[in-house]
């Protein structure tokens, strides 16, 4: 089933009718936003549009397709395969992963129990984020991370929505599969928010390589410990580290001889140095490679540094080059 079909099949039939009319490249479609009693919107090729009744994208807010409450309800039923009870844990996190690895974020009324999110009711807002795996986007970066038969402890620094998860995904895949010149490695992935593997019913929807083991929807701290104890990884990959528990787990993993490939939110090395917890790791030169992604262009690598902050590579171009949706 293609990406287009994977996404259209979960939409309410009234909304699907209009989306089917759109003549767009689904590889450039990033988000579909459905809000009760609000216009149907999409983010296409980095820009926001309304879906027009005539079957085209428009910036005119006067004549868009309106999503009704019933459309949101029907869409949620289709997304959950008429099994809302089966997605309680996912709804507590605020998202459901559907076939194809696309993430459906939901919002509505939160039900709390003892200050913890127990449930999400009256869902009125849906954001379908289409998964786009760019195979080969890590080609130019990987050679700087390789250290003999292993890799350096690596930290990818990037602002939000600038391609760090996409890059991490491809690096995992390439490390796992290896190449003609390099043997593949066992890579353990702690996929706390199901973004890397995008597992659907236990099966990863993204290609993370054939030597990769994934702990889906697992907290990073517990996940890293579990992988080290049970799966003999050569590399552990985690997305968006930052908390004290994450760092403690990282240090434990590194002491066990396992290499780390991690990402963190940030715009520069200076910003990371100033972070209270991660800053200590930077000062102690724990990480041996830093890959800095651009804030102004999605997927562009601004620089690669070593543990002392020395440039190893100047802006080495758009990591999307050589990649393929």
């Amino acid at each position, binding site marked *: 089933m293609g990406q287009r079909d994977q996404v259209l*099949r979960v939409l309410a*039939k009234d909304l*699907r009718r209009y989306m089917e009319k759109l003549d767009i490249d689904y590889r450039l479609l990033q988000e579909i936003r459905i809000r009760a009693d609000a216009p149907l919107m999409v983010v296409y090729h980095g820009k926001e549009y309304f879906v027009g009744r005539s079957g085209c994208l428009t910036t005119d807010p006067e004549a868009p397709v309106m999503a009704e409450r019933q459309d949101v*309800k*029907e869409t949620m*039923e*289709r997304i*959950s*395969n*008429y*099994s*809302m*009870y*089966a997605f*309680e844990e996912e709804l507590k996190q605020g998202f459901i992963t559907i076939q194809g690895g696309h993430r459906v974020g939901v919002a509505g009324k939160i039900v709390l129990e003892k200050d913890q999110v127990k*449930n999400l*009711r009256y869902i009125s807002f849906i954001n379908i984020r289409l998964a786009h795996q760019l195979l080969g986007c890590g080609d130019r970066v990987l050679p700087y991370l390789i250290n003999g038969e292993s890799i350096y402890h690596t930290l990818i620094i990037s602002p939000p929505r600038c391609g760090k998860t996409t890059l991490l995904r491809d690096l995992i895949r390439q490390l796992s599969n290896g190449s003609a010149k390099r043997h593949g490695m066992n890579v353990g992935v702690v996929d706390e928010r199901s973004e890397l593997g995008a597992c659907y019913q236990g099966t990863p929807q993204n290609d993370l390589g054939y030597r990769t083991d994934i702990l889906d929807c697992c907290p990073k701290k517990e996940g890293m410990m579990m992988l080290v104890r049970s799966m003999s990884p050569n590399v552990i990959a985690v997305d968006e580290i930052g908390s004290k528990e994450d760092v403690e787990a990282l240090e434990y993993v590194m002491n066990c001889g396992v290499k780390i490939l991690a990402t963190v939110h940030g715009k520069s090395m200076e910003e990371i140095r100033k972070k209270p917890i991660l800053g200590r790791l930077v000062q102690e030169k724990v990480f041996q490679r830093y890959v800095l992604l651009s804030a102004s262009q999605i997927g562009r690598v601004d620089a690669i540094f070593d543990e002392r902050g020395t440039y190893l590579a100047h802006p080495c171009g758009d990591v999307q080059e050589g990649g393929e949706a």
Partner: protein
Amino acid sequence: MNLLRMILKMTGGAMVFAGGSGFGLWLAGKRKRRIEILRELAQVLILLYGEVEYAAVDMVEIFQKLSGKTCYFRGFFGNMYEGLLRAEDVSLQELWENGIMADKTAGMLDREDVMLWREIGMHLGTLDRQTQLQTLHVLQDRLGRSIQDAETEYQSQAKVYRLVGITGGIFTAILLL
């Protein structure tokens, strides 16, 4: 000639008697079959409850399992499974309703039983786990009471149907003779 007429009358009388008795037995059998179907529906609810509470698998998989584990509802759940797999422009509730109308099992049940069957489908899959389980629990209670009432009725009704069938058959045969 008289002998032939006598034989024909006797044969006709026997057939009328058999028809009347058979009709009475058929009615009694129908009431018994109703109870069997309701018991199977109760089993379906138990299976649904277990799958929702412990396995938390999605409805498509549940319908596939139910199709394999039931007798009277095999066809119904088979169609539900295939209908959801095809992801047509029809909701689960519409599929359920259409499935009931097309299924011959519905013809073997009373109107209240069919309404209960409809109600099971109305709230399936759209509720959170706790509410779903509570709803199934309530339906299980109601169905349990329906089965009890049906069993109590059957004990008296079955005898009446058989008796009326047999005596009706005899009486009609005598009348015609």
